[in-house]
């Protein structure tokens, strides 16, 4: 058994195993911290930068911070809200996110977070990304212009012998997601479904199959993102 540590989140005392991931601990205790690249159980990517919180006054990504004795964590204040909103807006202009025309509308984490952060129109100019849609593989396609480069698919979706099916290409502004066509062609329907579900936006699309649930009745159409986490918090307070 690991040592337990005590620390505070938004002023409330929390106890958790030392060295656990702060984002996971916060979530387990009913504090929702927005994040687009985090996957519980996987090594953090620390790339979307949305989960920035204040740890002892310093801004740090919760997904790469390990809990330690006596730390004081603030998950929400004006500065953090503005920071997250700006980063979300940056994502919106970096790619093409035309929600009404997107297959993922209603189950898209980016869209849901935009609603949650009350984004009306971004403060940056749209860039109208013009990357090639990768559709050569029979059952799966990549709409790269929607990709937010969270690396979830790279980290979680592997071939049977443990190789990366997805990968990055180039760097900086030209950075884009690609896939190993040979390995992608060997993916089972379940693999593809999992890759599509893991994708927080509408980049990974399973071909030849429609969505079961119509727009308007999907996950985030009913409840805002993070609601399940925060509900937990209310229960605890009762």
């Amino acid at each position, binding site marked *: 058994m690991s040592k337990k540590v005590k620390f505070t989140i938004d002023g409330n005392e929390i106890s958790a195993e030392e060295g656990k991931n702060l984002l996971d601990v916060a979530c387990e205790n009913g504090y929702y911290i927005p994040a687009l690249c985090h996957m519980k159980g996987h090594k953090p990517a620390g790339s979307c930068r949305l989960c920035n919180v204040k740890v002892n006054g310093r801004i740090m990504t919760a997904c790469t911070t390990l809990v330690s004795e006596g730390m004081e964590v603030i998950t929400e204040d004006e500065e953090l809200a503005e920071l997250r909103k700006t980063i979300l807006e940056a994502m919106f202009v970096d790619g093409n996110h035309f929600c009404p025309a997107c297959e993922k509308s209603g189950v898209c984490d980016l869209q849901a977070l935009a609603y949650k952060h009350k984004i009306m129109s971004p403060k*940056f100019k749209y*860039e109208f990304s013009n990357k090639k849609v990768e559709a050569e593989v029979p059952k799966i396609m990549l709409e790269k212009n929607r990709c937010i480069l969270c690396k979830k698919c790279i980290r979680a979706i592997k071939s049977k012998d443990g190789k990366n099916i997805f990968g990055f290409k180039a*760097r900086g*502004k030209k*950075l884009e997601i*690609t896939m*190993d066509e040979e390995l992608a062609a060997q993916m089972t329907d379940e693999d593809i479904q999992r890759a599509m579900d893991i994708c927080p936006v509408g980049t990974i699309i399973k071909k030849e199959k429609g969505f079961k649930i119509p727009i308007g009745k999907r996950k985030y159409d009913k409840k805002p993102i993070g609601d399940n986490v925060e509900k937990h918090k209310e229960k605890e307070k009762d």
Partner: protein
Amino acid sequence: MTNSDIQEILGKYNNDRFRLMDILLDIQDKYGYIPKKFFNLIGQAVGLSSAKVEETVTFYHFFHTSPKGKYTIYLNDGIVATMKGRDNILKQFSEQTGCQINSVSKDEKFGLFSTPCIGMSDQEPAAIINKHIFTNLTVEKVNRIVRLMKKDTPIQKIIQTIYESDKVQNLIHTMVTDNIKKTGSVLLNKYKRGSAVKKSLNKNPEEILEEIKNSNLRGRGGAGFPTGTKWEFCTKSKQKPKFIVCNADEGEPGTFKDRVLLTNYPELLFDGMIIAGYTLGAEHGIIYLRYEYSYLKNFLQSKLEQYKKENLLGKKIVNSDFNFDIRIQLGAGSYVCGEETALIESMEGKRGEPRNRPPFPASCGYVNKPTTVNNVETLSCVPKIINHGSEWFKSFGTEESAGTKLLSICGDCGNSGVFEIEFGMTINEMLEMADTIETQAVVVAGPSGKIISENEFNRKICFEDLATAGAMIIIGKQRNLLEEVVPNFLDFFIDESCGSCTPCRVITTHAKNRLKKILAGKGTTKDLKDIKSWGNLMQKSNRCGLGKTALNPLLTTIKFFPELYERLIKDKEYISEFNLEKATADYEKITK
């Protein structure tokens, strides 16, 4: 090039995925480029998917996936090169070879490419052609070079012809001038190779650590972290093997001081690494050498051979129980790899993306083993501290910045080159040394540092005031700071970002566009406010130094040169960017 050719190279590195950089460099050296059709074969051999191989190949700008010309010419697009007339040289190369920039001629004889600072800011315009350096280029020299290339002259012969030298063994000095303009007491000074190593091996590692800690030596790469403390973290780690890595990836535009150390005092570096290894219990040293300095690789390798012959490297060095070896790892073109964890990723054959911390390299670095990464200059100080003592070292410099510092001074000055100064020197004193007239600004520590104005010239060069890894770019009054310098720096960060963190990948471009808007006379006070707030966000929310400092060229000019912006901004809250006449011009034309 056939499968068996590739397999031969793979075999040379035992199909080791951590040596992917070497594998790719060797393939490119031998065949000119790395064809995509071989990604699968390479991947299968080292146990990676072709997507993963592509990740590495496409990250570094010196890797090519299509033919790059029999003669591949790289011209620096940094600010100092531009100030020294790079555009004319480019035009001449372009005309003579028939290549547009970033393209290859039809007969695949020439390739002409842009690259960031190549570490020759004291002798620009300069070019890298087939790993060889051509400095102080003139239109006339370019004509002669291209004429020789058209006759298929070997590159070494071209160097010898152009720079009138018949000494092949001295080629590196023929190509590149040292320009040591001021020697000092610590670094640019006599040193007997092996002397400090022998002295160290007679002591306990604890004693050496104590000496380094007491010397207050701080990292010369810019961050200024105490070297002794950094070493101590690594000594505490019980895991083996441990690694000492020398960061010889000086990529900050305007910096070239490590080039001079590597060329003239490699013994200081090697001895520093051996002593660090002995102190930390590390038996392996790796020098991560930037691709731009490939021309130094064979030279350094021959020095290492000499060390082996003299038993300063290898098993049981100088009759002690300590084993140590050093190998050179070449990079392939990426500024962000100067960040220590990105450098480690690159050494492991991956894209040079800075790691998340924790874990720190001291416990989990190269191949997940305890690793200490130190700058060339930092390690080069170590033998002198051992030989002369930490008190001697502290007698130079200031309270918080002990010792001396190498400066790479370049730009608008009469005396550019490398200067060893004591910490605490003021910018004014430095400008006098550099023989300047009418200085508008000094770029302290390169694009990621500060662009300061005359009002700040009485400030001191040291960690407690103006910290620098060495770059000092002097900008004369004749330059347009906002048109020429700042956009050049921003483009550099846009090109060199690894792209991982959202703010760094996206916002730098938008900030640059706002500057363009201001320069076009359409700027408002809101634009300045936005740039400042984005700069603050970048500083706080990006993972690595590149992303944190990418907007510094804007932020520091706004701070130190407010009048330049005030002149352009008419203090309006809003100016419509929409021009009705322009937007309806087509319509007007048709309906007329």
